[in-house]
Every structure is written in structure tokens, then in C-alpha cells.
């Protein structure tokens, strides 16, 4: 996989396309969420950006020298907190919205 330091112009443009289209998807999808689910939504979105842990893993794989080792360790730890904590806490919130008699849904 080439990274942006060596990207050819076509790959750059492709990344830009993905960026713009994903932004519209995010906007559209969230516009329909009711107020009562805003807290879980914030928390769920928070868990999704925990995917940064993958970036931290890639950093860890190539880390050399004390500074980059420390950065990799901090990155993997923080990223894991984000992704694990994010999904678990969202699940805990949503567990309480389960279907029950008399419910609207």
C-alpha cells in the first residue's frame, strides 16, 4: 500500500472523491436520528473513529528508536481505549432502549 508521500495524482484524486462522498453519507445518515438517541449516537460515532487504532498498529510495526517506540505505545493504548470503551459504552446505553410492551417501536 502506498502512502500519501508517494501517491500518484490519480490515487490522490480517488482519496478526495472518497472523502467528499463519505462526508455526504455521514450528513444524510445522521440527519434522521431522533433527539432521544443523540447521546448513543455521539458515543457510537466516537467508537467508529476508534479505527485510528489500526493506524497506531501500523506505526508500531515500523517503530524504531525510543521516541517512535513511545509514540507507538501511546498510540496503540489510546486507540484501544477509544475503540473498546466506545463500543462497550454505546452498547450499554442501547441495551436500555430494548423493546418492551407499550413501547412505540
Amino acid at each position, binding site marked *: *500500500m502506498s*502512502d*500519501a*508521500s508517494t*501517491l500518484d495524482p490519480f490515487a490522490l484524486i480517488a*482519496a478526495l472523491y*472518497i*472523502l467528499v462522498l*463519505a*462526508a455526504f*453519507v*455521514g*450528513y444524510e445518515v*445522521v440527519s434522521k*436520528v431522533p*433527539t*432521544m*438517541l443523540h*447521546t*448513543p449516537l*455521539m458515543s*457510537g*460515532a*466516537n*467508537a*467508529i*473513529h476508534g*479505527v*485510528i*487504532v*489500526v*493506524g497506531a*498498529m*501500523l*506505526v508500531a*510495526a*515500523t*517503530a524504531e528508536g525510543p521516541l*517512535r517506540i513511545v*509514540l*507507538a*505505545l*501511546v*498510540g*496503540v493504548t*489510546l486507540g484501544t*481505549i*477509544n*475503540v473498546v470503551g*466506545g*463500543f*462497550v459504552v454505546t*452498547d450499554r446505553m*442501547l*441495551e*436500555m*432502549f*430494548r423493546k418492551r410492551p407499550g413501547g*412505540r*417501536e
Partner: protein
Amino acid sequence: MDLLQVLTYLVWLVGSVTFILALKFLASPATARRGNQLGAAGMALIILWTFFTVDGMLANWWILLVGGLVGSVIGVLGARRVPMTAMPQMVAIFNGAGGGAAAVVAIAEFLRDTGEAGSGELLSVPFMIATLLGAVIGSVSFTGSIIAFGKLQGIVAARPVKYPGSQVVTGALFLALVALAVYLVAFDNSVPLFLLFCGLALVLGVQLVMPIGGADMPVVVSLLNSYTGIAVAATGFVLGNYALLIAGTLVGASGAILTQLMCRAMNRSLFNVLFAGFGTGGEALAAGAEGEEQLREISAEDAAVLMAYGSRVVIVPGYGMAVAQAQGPVRELMDLLLAKGVDVQFAIHPVAGRMPGHMNVLLAEANVPYDRLKEMDEINDDFGETDVARGMGANDGVNPLAREEGSPISGMPILNVDQAQNIIVLKRGRGTGFAGIPNPLFSNPKTTMLFGDAKPSVEALVSGVKQA
């Protein structure tokens, strides 16, 4: 492109679709949980795929082991142990962790690539811009989230903290960051200057959130969530990783629209939230009204009788219910009143508690069916027909001052509690609300006050209703 690479791109695509579905399924309580689990599964797929297919992943295996273990333990314990009332803080801290991780990844990538490039050779402009964006936004999100956590947790002063010239300092920091960025991109990929750039960004995060009042922290957390998304997208661009790019952009965009929705619920602009220093505008008004308040107290027994013989009771939960963990007794009270043929509903202000939907989460935890929870627009016209409205630690969201000019909360939509026949306010002390503004509702002739912590107060009401 070999087969492994093709498969990697496909795995990213599958993961990205699960993220989109996770957000989409959140549109209804019935599907929300399944959506979140689907997103988690997609996330696990991407992480495991990366772990098993990237060359040299185990070169520093102990980093993955230690970081993964420590992170998982903190994440699970934090998420499982934290009381539902402290949810907003928890989201803030998880978000800060993500922002910090994004900044760290951007810094490490910069160090690696400057190390590889020969001296005097500049890194490509798109690469540098994305790296700097990831570093600066991630850093701001990191320290900003920590301050937001501190304010919600009560470690950092919740009031807007301002000092003379603080806006000048913010402006100067911003300009310095822009100047450094231009220099770093165009003239010199200097490591010390890059680290200085990140350091200033960390300070900017503190500087941006400190002047914002605690009541506005939910909006800030939502905005910082969006920032972290953007930082992750930028890092994804740097790494050429589409999973990061798509997930980050999704969250960046959805966080931005969510922030907008939250501001609209308070009838304020984002600019006003970020820079106005809520609670500093109407100080004179606040001082004037304070001394004249005549509050009438009511005993729990009398309040119980009032409710038990009413035909319609609307409960307006606020932060007081959350801190006292009174949602269980509140449910019991509802059941008793329903058994006596009283119609019980809950009126939820869009920003009640510390986050939109905070009250819904708590009441759902106590098994209050969600068709009894009414949003502001649904119930506001019905208050005139209501016999008893009961506030619980609700304050700013029921403050009639919001209908008048010249108050700091002017124009904020409120619940029309003051139109009810009787109003009972449960309140811990005589203080003002989170926004620091007096509430004329409390001195309204129809209002009686039941002082005390919400939980014992509601329990007293429960036993009162049983006897009534």
C-alpha cells in the same frame, strides 16, 4: 496490485459499510443496538485483518500486547463501571483518547518519513498538509476533551474561565499555528518546529474549551468528536488507508451535523456557544432578582396528595434526578400514580441533563416505557390542562426568563411548565441552575418547593402516594 492488496481494499470496504449501517440503525431504538454491534464486528474485522496480513506486524509485538491490554482494560472498566449519569464525561474521555491517538500517529509518520527522506528534500505537499491537519486537530481534540471531561466531572471549574486578553491569546496561537504550518510545508520539514507545532496545538485545545461554560459541554464534546473524526480521516490519507479515511470522514460529518442539531435545540449558534461565554451576559439581572425570591415550601405528604388526586401529572426530569440516581423511585412513583388512574407523562427538554437524550437513557434504564417520554414540542401545548407538573433538578429548561429579552438565555426554547395548575419543584438547594441564572418559576404563586436531594424526596413522595 497483488491479491492480498485487493483483499485488503475489500475488507476496508466491508468495514466501512458496517460503520455506515451502525449510524443508520441508530435512527430507531429498535435497531440501534444491532447497528452498534454490527459496527463493532466490522471494526474487529479490520483490526484482525491488519494484524494478520501486514508484514512485520510483530516486529514490536510487545507494544501491541501492552497497549492492547492496557487500553482494553481501561476501556472496558471505564465503560462498564461508570454510572449512567457520568456518561457524557466518559464519551469525552474516549474521544480525547482517539484524538490523542490520531495526533500520535501523524507525528510518528512525520518522524519516519523525515528520517527516510534525505536532508534538504521536502516531503510532498499533500502528505505534509494531511499530516499537519491530523496532528493539529488530534491534539486540540485531545486536550479539549480532557478539559471538557474535567468540567463535567467537576475537577475543572464549570463556569466559563476567562482572563483579560484570552481571546487575543487564542488568536495569536491560531496565527502562530498557521505560520508554522506554512513554513513546515513550504520551506523546511524541521522536526523541532513540528514538535513545537504540536505543542501549541495542545495549548490551543485547552484555550478553546476553558472559556465555555459547563452547560455547553455536550455541544463541545460533540464538536470535538467531529474534530477527532477529521483528524482520523487526515491520518487515513497520510497512511493511504481508506478504512480510516471513510470512518473518519463519516464521523467528522455526522459530528458536525449533530453539533448543529444540538445548538438548534438551544436556539443558539455554534459561534455563540464557543465564544460568548454563556452565563456572563445577564449578571446584573441575576443580582437584582436574587434577594426578592419568596419561595413557598411544601411537605412531601402534601405534594403526594396533590399528585394522587390530580388527573394528569407531568414529570420534568433534570440533572438533579441524574446525580441522585432517582430514576428508580421515579418509576415506582409513576406506577403508583398510574394505578390510581392518574395520567403520568415525562416532559424531556432537548438539553435536559448534560446531553441530549441523557434523561431518556436514565429513564429507560429504570424501565419507563418510552412512549411516556414526550419531547418538548409534543407536550408544550398541553401544560395548560395539567394539574401538577413536577420538576426535578430541572432549571434552565423551564425558566420563563427565556421568553424575555435581556436574559442570557433569551430565546432558548423552554418547557411551558409555568402554565400548569400546580407546580412542585424538587430542588437540592436554593441555588441557580447550571447557567447561573435565577428562575422566576420558583417564586411563581402556583409553585411550591420540596427541598432536598431528589432520591429521598421522591422516596418520600412514593410512601406519601401509597397512603393517600
